[in-house]
């Protein structure tokens, strides 16, 4: 029997991957195996939500990274040869997916945005973005296994079904990894989660000084939204936390409204807002690429235009 594996660190990841796995399983006639940390929830729930089998990853010593599980997962994979192995494209997921694919001599579709089984050819069809989001790459795999990473929130979390049963097994502890964790610094939660925001006002390089971001914030408040940023502002200037960086290598957002202020509209950034219902812009350069990628926009200095928009909104 064909097999689909999901490998998850957290409950949220497990549910989304079960959703993805269940979209493939019936067509493939495959069993769904969930390889999860105990933090991902009780095995009964994982089974109720679609897993036919749960492999629990044992708890690791505090200095061991998630990647330490790799040799054990590799061994299991070589023993049962699953057809598809799914990960969420988180930092740890992406690293482990690539390392596992290398060990298995398998292909890996990174950042997979569409996933289907083609019964006629017996192959897996996948889509992903390339060239900073300017292109869609369509891939197929006929070899097994194929490893796939899917961006967070691309699949609906799997729902509970009645009367499901499955087996649970604990995987053995792995040997110590050469990479050791000396310290974990949890993220300070300074920023709101913009992936859930209904309205996002995004600040770009058109802002001259950090203090001027108050203007963007003011507009965000007037619209009942949150502040986002382009990469130069978070990674070069460090004006805003990296969680607010929107784009292919940052967060991908799906607000009802996106307003880009002083944002030029580079493809890597705009790809991150392609799910927005309305995109609009204020930029003083009428040739800025963002205008073609917006529903409407104002050509003008954000310093002059934004206060007037706020005023107009109050009317």
């Amino acid at each position, binding site marked *: 029997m064909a097999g689909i594996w999901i490998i998850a660190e957290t409950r949220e990841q497990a549910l989304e991957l079960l959703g993805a796995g269940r979209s493939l399983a019936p067509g493939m006639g495959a069993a769904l195996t969930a390889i999860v940390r105990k933090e991902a929830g009780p095995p009964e729930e994982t089974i109720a939500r679609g897993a036919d089998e749960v492999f629990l990853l044992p708890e690791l010593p505090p200095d061991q*990274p998630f990647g330490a599980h790799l040799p054990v997962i590799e061994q299991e994979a070589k023993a049962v040869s699953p057809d598809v192995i799914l990960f969420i494209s988180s*930092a*740890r997921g*992406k*690293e482990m997916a*690539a*390392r596992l694919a*290398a*060990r298995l001599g*398998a*292909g*890996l*579709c*990174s*950042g997979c945005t569409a996933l289907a089984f083609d019964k006629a050819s017996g192959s897996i*069809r996948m889509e*992903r*973005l*390339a*060239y900073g*989001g*300017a292109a*869609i*790459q*369509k*891939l197929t*795999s006929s070899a097994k296994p*194929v490893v796939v990473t899917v961006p967070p929130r691309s699949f609906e979390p799997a729902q509970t079904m009645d009367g499901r049963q499955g087996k649970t097994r604990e995987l053995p502890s792995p040997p110590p990894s050469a*990479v050791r*964790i000396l310290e974990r*610094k949890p993220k300070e939660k300074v920023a709101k989660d913009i992936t859930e925001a*209904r309205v996002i006002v995004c600040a770009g390089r058109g802002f001259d000084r950090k203090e001027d971001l108050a203007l963007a914030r003011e507009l965000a408040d007037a*619209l009942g939204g949150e502040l986002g940023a382009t990469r130069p502002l978070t*990674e*070069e200037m460090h004006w805003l936390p*990296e969680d607010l960086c929107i784009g292919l*290598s940052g967060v991908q957002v799906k607000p009802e*409204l996106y307003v880009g202020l002083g944002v030029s509209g*580079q493809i890597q950034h*705009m790809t991150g807002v*392609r799910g927005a*219902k*309305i*995109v609009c812009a204020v930029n003083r350069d*009428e040739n800025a690429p963002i*205008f*073609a990628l*917006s*529903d*409407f*926009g*104002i*050509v*003008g*200095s954000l310093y*002059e235009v934004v206060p*007037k*928009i706020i005023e*107009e*909104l109050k009317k």
Partner: protein
Amino acid sequence: MPIVVACFKWVVDEAYIRKGSDGKLDFSAVDYKIGEYDRNAIEEAARLRDAGGGGSVIGITVGAPDSAKGVKDGLSRGMDQAFFASDPSFKDLEPSQTAAILAEVIRTRIPQFDLITCGEGSSDLYAQQVGPRLAELLGIPCVCFVQKLSLEGGKLVADRRVEDGIEVVEAPLPALVTVLPDINTPRIPGVKDTLMAGKKPVTAIKKDELAGSFEGTLKTEAMTASSLERTGEKLAADAAGIARFVDSLRKSGVIR
């Protein structure tokens, strides 16, 4: 005095890709560049060499013969020498193939090194696979998404960024890291750097000098233009334009 191997890729500058009328990608006006993230990998290698009081940076790339320009570009960015594995068939490789070729070059031609640096992803495919795959093929420790790095006493200490914060990790050398863009600010080569680059040694390697078939595992069926275009109505920054802007927002129903 560390020997650092920096991997880089000569890629299409995506800013010049146009969308053809048939929905295909139009590469007719494109220029090429060293991948943005790879510039950080080269800079970090150079920084570690300089911080270590010597050593060297060995650049390595895989590509079609016309990537030779990229080799010179890379040498102007702080590398001391370069290995260039080229073949007409080394165009549009899958990450698994690129990693296998890099591994073969390193295994057979770079007998001793302390560290391999890669960008977090290539600017074209951004599959983020080559680094970790290469580490596995060479059987060395791998630390991805590093934003701060130092070498001391035969090991590396790195801050790696993960979703829930930072993991400060250590690993014995030789090892491989992939670096994030905020780890450093890559230099912009000056005229002197460009002149010097032409004098640095380059070892060209042909496909038949490498052992292995480097077969791919996935098949790219199509590469089509994505459609991000919207109506793109431009308004003036006058009272009428602002009123229309706000009115359009209201009519779209996104303001509550």
